[in-house]
């Protein structure tokens, strides 16, 4: 195999890994970004006295999700050359899985307390956050497990 052909055969898998990284990053970031958006809306509504625990919980979710997105963007950075290795992505998955479980638990714990905020939309938005946390957890489990190995 001449050097051009060798370069070409190495380039294709690397490009495929990058494409995978872009798609997986996009898909996982999407529900996480959604959680942040709802957090912002909900935090604006919990200034009422007596709703401090909701604020603390939402702030914790916000911090965790912000950290998850930063971690995800760093490891699956599509501009990285070479792209992240399979063990790096496995380690990322190992960090993200408990964080995703934590945000889901926190939002589920906050749901019954949402009644203290006299607004039905608040509970609805919190439910949507739960959905997004579940979706993010599922995508972290499934997509990152399929990350291809470098040649």
């Amino acid at each position, binding site marked *: 195999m001449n050097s051009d052909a060798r370069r070409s055969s190495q380039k294709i898998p690397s490009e495929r890994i990058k494409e995978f990284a872009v798609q997986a990053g*996009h898909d996982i970031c*999407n529900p996480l970004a959604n959680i942040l958006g709802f957090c912002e809306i909900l935090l604006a509504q919990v200034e009422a006295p007596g709703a401090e625990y909701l604020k603390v919980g939402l702030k914790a979710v916000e911090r965790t999700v912000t950290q998850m997105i930063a971690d995800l963007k760093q490891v699956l950075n599509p501009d990285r050359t070479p792209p992240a290795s399979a063990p790096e992505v496995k380690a990322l998955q190992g960090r993200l899985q408990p964080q995703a479980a934590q945000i889901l638990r926190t939002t589920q714990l906050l749901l019954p307390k949402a009644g203290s905020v006299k607004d039905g939309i608040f509970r609805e938005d919190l439910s949507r956050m739960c959905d997004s946390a579940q979706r993010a957890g599922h995508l972290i489990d499934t997509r990152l497990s399929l990350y291809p190995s470098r040649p």
Partner: protein
Amino acid sequence: MFKILYIEDTENNRILITRRLGQSGYQVVTADDAEQGMAVARTEKPDLILMDMGLPGIDGWNATRRLKADPALKEIPVIALTAHVMHGDREKALAAGCDDYDTKPFQFARLLRKIEALLVPHSPQRGEGRPALQSLGDGGVEQVLPAPQVRSYETPA
């Protein structure tokens, strides 16, 4: 009141942005894929389109090219939105015909500034009655306004 079309396949994102834009005094119509979005753009004649670039089927890049190739729709400003950014994506979006570009998670105040910047020069005669936004910097935008008017166009499951 300015009308914004948001083309996005994730329901929770449609609800989130609809809520935020509604609170800021915009009328929002949504579509969950590019085909539906093109149809809604023709019937609703929005003042601006927010286009998710990661749409299934026809992606946001191709949808924007089609919009900009349509004489009836090409003047509508399009803001590209994406959740995972690659170096050169902004240029790619502009080359596809997008007028601006933003990334998720949204800094909503920044997105609003981009929307405002595109709406004012494009539609000076439209949007009457829309309350002025009082920017509070990146921390948020004070909400003024009537309940959001929302219409959704979703592809049947």
